[in-house]
């Protein structure tokens, strides 16, 4: 994959990521229902993991550490959101 394509890929996914992030942040701040907050965090974490997978295939196919790192951080987000939901 050429550098130009990678740049475009970064741009498009970055914009989508930014939009979802903003929605996530704003909704989490308001008094949405507890299950809604958890589901938003779950969707966001899954999206974040797949963003890492795409980076892996686009840039660093020889280094699966990237995917593991994204997986770990996504998992951490899901666990925190779930425990906060559970402990209410």
């Amino acid at each position, binding site marked *: 994959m050429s550098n130009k394509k990678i740049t475009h890929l970064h741009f498009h996914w970055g914009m989508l990521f930014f939009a979802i992030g903003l929605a996530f942040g704003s909704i989490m*701040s308001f*008094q949405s229902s507890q299950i809604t907050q958890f589901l938003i965090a779950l969707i966001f974490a899954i999206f974040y993991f797949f963003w890492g997978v795409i980076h892996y295939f686009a840039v660093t196919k020889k280094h699966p*550490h990237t995917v*593991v790192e994204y997986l*770990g951080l996504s*998992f*951490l*987000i899901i666990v*925190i959101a779930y425990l906060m939901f559970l*402990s209410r």
Partner: protein
Amino acid sequence: MTPIVKFFLPHHKNNHRAHAVKAPAIFSYVIFLILLQVFLKIFSIPGSNVLGISTNISTTDIINLTNERRVSQGIRPVKENQLLSQAAAAKAQDMLNQNYWAHFAPDGKTPWQFINQSGYSYSVAGENLARDFDNASSVVVAWMNSPSHKQNLLDSSFTEIGVAVTEGNLNGVNGSLVVQMFASPANPAPIQQVEETTPTSTANSLSATPSATIVGTTNSVTDDIGNAPESTEAVYGETSQVQVNYPLNPYLIIKTVSLIISTLLVLLIAIDIVYVRRNRINRALHHNFAHLFVFSLFAIAITFISSGSIL
């Protein structure tokens, strides 16, 4: 280089990447959080004195904060009415007794029935509910963030208020319960005012039988009085303060620990970014800016999220 420094700061001995932001450490945070939750579940027994957290919600604070918001918007403040407070207390107790979280009871009892039973005769009334908040300020802020609840708080047709704060087990969760009731006493002037100021009211104001209409959303009710209006004597009594003591507050602990982990990750990733730039290290791995963005956002969300819910 001590192991602690090697854990938190990037260095050539840890391959220029702090161990604290590597995948094994991140998974260990997950395991730690799960173990913490298990620990809290085991020790969160009523009467346990492992930890102590107290929650203070004062009815006086709720009323004062409500009036502050009204005055700031140029709306006259509401006066506390003891009968409305009794109605609010009865509603709170009914929710605990019947184990429901709603404006309308499972047996069909409406919010204004509690007001009527307290002996308060009203021309217009509204109700706001909140549960599991830590302080009065958070409750009022949450109501103000919700358009329908804000409408009740800032409704100029309301002249009196009653607030009850209680604690108990609702749907298996121990916590605080706040019931706020607004009303205006039934007299000719408020009835005319209601007809002019609540265009969404569909009930016939001249009907012989009192009828109720939900205005806007389910948290506000109006009742047109067809019978001869009666004057209600307002009793301005003392307010009560409820202190809720929890041996453990799992939510606050999980929230605090999660916030610490997220903030720590943000700080360490930021340090890593600076380190990599200063030392001109070429990396194909580790998307620091993405992680920084995500966990900054997540830390902000954790900070502002509230355990309480309103209705």
